[in-house]
């Protein structure tokens, strides 16, 4: 699910890029913020950081003693994406294995749908293996599947999420 968030952030402007003109200072704060925002990738609470929408406020700068850099506390709004337990979402299958399939959903790339969580479907081996149910509904590489999120896990080192999903409710499964 997409989230609209408001975040406080500390932007450090190196002494050499400080300018007399106020406008330039504001620009360098924004550029710096965008840079840090982009490299942060995701946070545990808010999920994947997608875009910065507005800069709400720039606080008073504080000079750092030894370097002469200036730290500006800013508040901005942005959009993030996070999967929640119990949420309904759609994913695209990118790998079919004997015991289940892997999907991606927006920025979340490792979503596992186990065979156990889609009891109606059976594995059909072959060059392009698929999962199929009695109504000939197919889950194969490239198909879009609507699922319910069973759980998520935050990986601090990779700064990304993994998720387990299932199809064990009505109205879930491949979408055309």
């Amino acid at each position: 699910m997409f989230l609209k968030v408001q975040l406080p952030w500390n932007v450090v402007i190196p002494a050499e890029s400080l300018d007399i003109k106020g406008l330039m200072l504001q620009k360098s704060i924004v550029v710096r913020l965008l840079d840090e925002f982009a490299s942060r990738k995701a946070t545990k609470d808010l999920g994947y950081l997608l875009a910065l929408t507005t800069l709400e406020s720039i606080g008073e700068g504080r000079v750092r003693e030894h370097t002469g850099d200036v730290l500006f506390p800013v508040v901005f709004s942005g959009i993030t994406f996070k999967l929640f337990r119990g949420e309904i979402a759609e994913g695209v299958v990118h790998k079919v294995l004997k015991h289940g399939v892997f999907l991606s959903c927006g920025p979340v790339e490792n979503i596992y749908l186990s065979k156990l969580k889609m009891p109606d479907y059976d594995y059909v081996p072959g060059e392009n293996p698929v999962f199929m149910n009695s109504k000939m509904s197919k889950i194969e590489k490239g198909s879009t599947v609507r699922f319910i999120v069973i759980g998520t896990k935050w990986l601090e080192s990779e700064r990304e999420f993994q998720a387990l999903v299932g199809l064990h409710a009505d109205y879930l499964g491949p979408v055309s």
Partner: protein
Amino acid sequence: MSEKGGKGFSLPTGKAVKSSLKSTPSTKDASLKGKDDSSTKSKKGRKVQFDSEGLHEPKSNFSSKFDNPAAASGKADWGKGGKGDKVGNGRKKEPQPLELKIEQELPQSAKCLMDCEAADILQGIQEQMILLSKDPTIKIPVSFDKGLQYAKRTSHYTNPQSVRKVLEALTKYGVSDGEISVIANVCPETADEVFALVPSLKTTRSVLIQPLKEVLSELTKLKQST
């Protein structure tokens, strides 16, 4: 014995008893202190209670030990630890229903967006991207494109504002922000579909069903013609 018996009698009435217990032997100043004590250290007060109760009863030794964790004999500690563990395990083993509880997980500074709202905003940003990409110092988050693609694919409505307006009618029936977003994202055709996909709404089904049907028929009017 008569004194102890008296204390024992006054026990069951609770807080008032504690202060009276402490204040009886002392002057007015002390009684003030006693009150303070009883309000701040109510546990201590209870201990006193139990001790006297213990004396009153034949099993005095056992009960006083039990109530005296401060003195903490090894046995008492074990007992406590064991209890705690059991409770913890019990909670873990209880299968939690697979329901949406976004509000509990989300910090206050964050709000749920419907996919169509997100698509609207992200698309607006992408239109400025051509201009932004001329400046190499401006970096775009890696997840931006994937997020935009996802939002485009899953947004079924063209006018997010009116979708929000229609769905907000459900908030007065206790439907949460997260639930509203999920409803908008799945673009349901029937009320049954909504209850199947958002099981947390089932508890208020009888109240919800009529307004939900109205909302769904409003929503179909707003659907993208594809």
